């Protein structure tokens, strides 16, 4: 059994970067077009970084790593984010 968690587990690292809760933001997958709250995505995280994948097609939506005081954020797998400021 691999270390797959729910999107919530990435809430901490994402909120180090974005000044709001990203787990309720809706993300559309470039692989299959599915739209989900980030909290519902599949998260693989360990000492090297956090990888967030589509639960349907496994496409990598978001990757985050940290080193020497910098964050590296790759969102190539996200077609669009829908952010509701009221949430």
């Amino acid at each position, binding site marked *: 059994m691999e270390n797959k968690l729910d999107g919530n587990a990435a809430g901490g690292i994402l909120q180090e970067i974005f000044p709001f809760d990203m787990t309720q933001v809706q993300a559309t997958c470039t692989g299959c077009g599915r739209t989900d709250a980030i909290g519902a995505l599949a998260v693989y995280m360990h000492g*090297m970084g956090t990888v967030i994948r589509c639960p349907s097609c496994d496409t990598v939506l978001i990757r985050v790593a940290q080193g*020497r005081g910098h964050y590296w954020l790759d969102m190539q797998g996200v077609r669009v984010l829908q952010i509701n400021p009221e949430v």
Partner: protein
Amino acid sequence: MSKGFVSRGFQGRRKSGGERGRIPPGQYLERGFPVLSAGPTPHTPLANWDFSLLGEIDPPKRWTWEAFCALPHEKVTTDIHCVTKWSKLDTHWEGVSVDTLLKQVAYDAHYMIAESDGGYTTNLPLEDVLGGKAWVVDTYEGQPLSPEHGGPARLLVPHLYFWKSAKWVRGLRLVRQDEPGFWESLGYHNHGDPWKEERYRGD
């Protein structure tokens, strides 16, 4: 915030050993074998598995699992070092050296990109994989390499940080221009020498 804070009484799981000289700077000794995965564990059936040499080579080569198993295998005992700071000493592997694989082809390339099931990639200069420095291994501690550790076959390049030893490797692509791989394109060092602590870009 909270700089300098130390948790009273916390040591963590690490053990310092008498093996000082074998542990690169910033590393600690690990007796287990942590599994770090960036995605679901692939389970390619051996009947469908193949291994390829691609890119600037002539001719491209492809081995089925049976053909790969029939290639000359070597035993390798080596230390491995993960950029997340654990080092594991005297690990035992068996596999086909990259020298053996490349001996069969002509190539005009300076770099190798390892490509794995699930899309993971990592890049290496050819001088880091030739001359007895790299293998494609299928056996760990005398047993077939388990899927969680990269089986049926993974790359083994123990003189560099272990993210370069790509799990679930399916091919080596030889190229003239370097192409940063999965972690190299996300802030990790392009080369990754643990003895020079080449962890992140700019180190």
